[in-house]
């Protein structure tokens, strides 16, 4: 069993182009809080599930965004089950290991009660589908010494967003949802934290 690292947070979000602004917002806000985001990007093959479980177990926290409940655009049109499935894996892990803390984010108030009534009694963090909402709710979920402010996170986000084309170019990638682009974005966001978020 891997030892969980206090900085590592499992980020369970949809990987699609429409979600890009919120994807960058999550990376920014988590980095501003001092987290090291981890995602299933780049995990492929027939042992994918085992590696996802190991990834969850290596993290002390997890963020589950259940806002993508619509059918996708491509035939055959299907909902995305990966996010709720990975939340289920996490909840099972956290029951055996209470040190693991998990958080659910949604964009619409009260929708979770309909989409996943098993979580009744759980109040998700509602980000309204906005970048600012993700940053605001991250500040509601976590508190730390020298708490980053939303304006600081916004500055980080703007810089990160501006640098996306260069990061993609360096990675030789077309999509931000690749393992290399993800790690480069996380490092860039951590660097921007040191630029905008005061330590002492």
């Amino acid at each position, binding site marked *: 069993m891997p030892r969980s690292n206090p*900085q590592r947070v499992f980020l369970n979000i949809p990987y699609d182009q429409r979600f890009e602004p919120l994807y960058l917002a999550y990376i920014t806000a988590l980095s501003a809080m001092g987290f090291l985001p981890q995602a299933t990007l780049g995990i492929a093959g027939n042992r994918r599930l085992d590696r996802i479980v190991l990834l969850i177990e290596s993290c002390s926290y997890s963020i589950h965004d259940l806002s993508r409940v619509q059918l996708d655009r491509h035939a055959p049109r299907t909902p995305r089950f990966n996010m709720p499935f990975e939340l289920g894996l996490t909840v099972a892990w956290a029951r055996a290991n209470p040190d693991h803390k998990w*958080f659910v984010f949604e964009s619409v108030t009260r929708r979770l009660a309909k989409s996943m009534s098993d979580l009744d009694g759980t109040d998700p963090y509602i980000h309204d589908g906005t970048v600012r909402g993700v940053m605001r709710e991250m500040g509601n*979920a976590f508190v730390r010494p020298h708490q980053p402010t939303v304006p600081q996170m916004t500055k980080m986000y703007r810089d990160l967003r501006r640098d996306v084309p260069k990061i993609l170019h360096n990675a030789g990638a077309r999509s931000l949802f690749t393992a290399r682009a993800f790690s*480069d974005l996380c490092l860039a966001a951590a*660097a921007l*934290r040191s630029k905008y978020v005061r330590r002492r």
Partner: protein
Amino acid sequence: MARRTRLEFEPLSLEETARQLGVPRRRAKRILALVGVKSDSKGRTGRVSKHRVGSAKSARVTKA
């Protein structure tokens, strides 16, 4: 689900962040330069001065 949680840990240095993300040193340097942050060998960071001109090489003093 956890309620509002207090984080006590210190953020990792940039060097350690790059290591844990699996970003090789040269690539990490390029990314830091891209966002305008420099990192020394101990992983400390600082802004790149807007007023810095030239490189360490060009600033080298040569004997006349």
